[in-house]
């Protein structure tokens, strides 16, 4: 039992943090929100070079995974920096393809995802696909069929302007059918929830850090507002919520059971969202503006809360994963 990140895992996080800090990520987020994918895709290939997408892909398909703990480490940093794009969706697509009984689609599509050459998105059932206009691989699961969709419908902005939503068009090449697709989709959902939980935790940590910095320098009544107990206690609560989401995330990465992953997802997303509310309150009106960078994380915290499973769905999955009978009544 040693429930701590090891030296290599921490060094991996630090290297991603340093790279994303120097990469002017906020301007890439803003460009992405305007439909200009160039700086975001440049960032994407640097992340691929750092091995981020290979973590979800088995060695047989040119990946280094599956390594869920390292993936969670990486996605905390991606969330902390607000990196745009179908990051979670590419991981989920990789999990979906590598979870099929037939290896054909995986052999054909995964090496390019691992290298960053292609970008994937996917829609399970009737959900939206994120950033379909930026993706080169658009997967759609309907019932027991997995398709390579030929295109997508109109792109609609999310409440987080750097997330853009579209429906896959019907038709396209059928990649796989049958129970294997249902099983692989459930596997993909677990990876999507794990990555979303990590991304949300990162977003929450960024919101907390920025708000702490702000209340230390913002003065009112002649003193920093961070010296007021009413301010301190809100931030202490945010810290508590985030700190207790973190072990759930890494515990889920170790077990990868549906219940553990759902618990991590709901807890990290609720913590990030509560932190967003606190961050907005303590920044006052400046936090309510699109031009201030805080907005990039504020809206993402809201969007991630319902992406890949609402709080109610995740809580139901937690109870569904317990041993013994279901509810008796």
């Amino acid at each position, binding site marked *: 039992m040693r429930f701590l990140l090891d030296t290599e895992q921490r060094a991996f996080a630090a290297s991603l943090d340093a790279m994303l800090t120097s990469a002017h990520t906020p301007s890439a987020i803003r460009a992405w929100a305007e439909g200009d994918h160039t700086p975001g895709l440049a960032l994407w290939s640097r992340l691929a070079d750092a091995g981020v997408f290979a973590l979800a892909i088995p060695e047989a398909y040119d990946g280094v995974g599956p390594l869920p703990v390292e993936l969670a480490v990486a996605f905390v940093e991606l969330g902390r920096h607000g990196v745009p794009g179908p990051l979670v969706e590419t991981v989920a697509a990789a999990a979906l393809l590598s979870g099929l009984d037939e290896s054909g689609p995986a052999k054909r599509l995964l090496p390019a995802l691992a290298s960053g050459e292609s970008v994937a998105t996917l829609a399970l059932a009737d959900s939206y696909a994120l950033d379909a206009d930026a993706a080169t691989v658009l997967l759609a699961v309907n019932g027991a069929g997995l398709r390579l969709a030929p295109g997508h419908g109109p792109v609609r902005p999310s409440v987080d302007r750097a997330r853009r939503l579209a429906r896959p068009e019907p038709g396209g090449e059928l990649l796989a059918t049958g129970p294997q697709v249902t099983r692989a989709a459930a596997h993909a959902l677990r990876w999507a929830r794990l990555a979303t939980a990590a991304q949300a935790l990162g977003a929450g940590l960024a919101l907390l850090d920025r708000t702490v910095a702000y209340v230390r320098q913002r003065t009112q009544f002649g003193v920093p507002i961070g010296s007021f107990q009413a301010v301190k206690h809100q931030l202490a609560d945010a810290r508590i919520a985030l700190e207790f989401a973190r072990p759930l995330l890494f515990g889920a990465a170790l077990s990868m059971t549906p219940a553990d992953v759902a618990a991590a997802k709901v807890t990290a997303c609720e913590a990030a969202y509560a932190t967003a509310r606190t961050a907005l309150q303590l920044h006052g009106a400046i936090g309510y503006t699109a031009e201030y960078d805080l907005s990039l994380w504020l809206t993402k915290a809201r969007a991630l809360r319902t992406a890949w499973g609402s709080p109610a769905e995740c809580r139901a999955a937690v109870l569904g994963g317990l041993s013994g009978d279901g509810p008796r*009544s």
Partner: protein
Amino acid sequence: MDLTHSAADEAFRAEARAWLDAHVPSVPLPSLETEEGFAAHRAWEAELAADRWSVVSWPTEYGGRGADIVRWLVFEEEYYAAGAPGRVGQNGISLLAPTLFDHGTREQRARVLPPMATGEVIWAQAWSEPEAGSDLASLTSRAVRTDGGWLLGGQKTWSSRAAFADRAFGLFRSEPDTPKPHQGLTYLMFDLRAPGVTVRPIGRLDGKPAFAELFLDDVFVPDEDVIGEPGQGWRVAMSTAGNERGLTLRSPGRFLAAADRLVDLWRTHCDPSDTALRDRVADAVIGARAYQLFTYASASRFLDGESIGPESSLNKVFWSEYDIALHETALDLLGPEGELADTDWSEGYVFSLAGPVYAGTNEIQRDIIAERLLGLPKGRR
């Protein structure tokens, strides 16, 4: 990063489980906040101690098993999963004993710890005074030098377990004119049945005498019952306060077992259309797991030689609020039955309500988190 226990740790778990299976009373003991229940729980401490299960983390010479923190956590998981009785010796074991290990003399440890381990001597804590709660250093009860020892005077209050306990420990002002309030304090152990001690039990919310106030009128304490140097009591006590807020007060095992019981209750009492209540049950399950994993992470850091420090404040706010939410959910699931007093759930509920108040109020803990972990400036309280 891993959560799997070694084969030796699992063997320890199996040994604990087998012992508990054979010994945990099949009928729950009466409430330990009653005279009869106190005696029954004292006898249970003796039974635990007979096979060295009462203080597993202590060195073997004092009745323990020298278990490291991971094995202690494993033991606690098994203890609560088995539905074993509450620990009447808790104050002494988790508050006084760590202080004696750090600051006591060899003679004190040899004299005090073995009867603590067997429940022969049950300890009450005597920190608070009527005007000294969160601002503990403002205490005024005194220790005055006398031949071979000290004379204690003044009043202590909210002394947990003091209604039926044997001895108590606390801080006393031994140098009245120091420049700062936390200077000139001395940490002393004293006998609750000594001449000059008056114990007045105080009923908590449900009327049970879970604590008491102590009136001290020239109570003699020999020098051998001073812990650490006279006048250095604050420094000595702070190590105890750290233990109180830290890992050893509320083990995850207790909450994991309570969450399991809550799920059982939900399965028998649930209204499938009440999704709000279902979500609260899920949150109780998640919270217990979060607390367990957070504690395992802290334990890992501790084993690496790091001190726990201000993160114990995160821990304290979390468990105290979690404990209330868990019990409120149970009472709401029970419906009209939830109103009844003296059930396991309602007694647990009453106990949980004190959590945010004792062991350093949650307001104080949030200040510590804000100032020491987030680096926010000190301000007027």
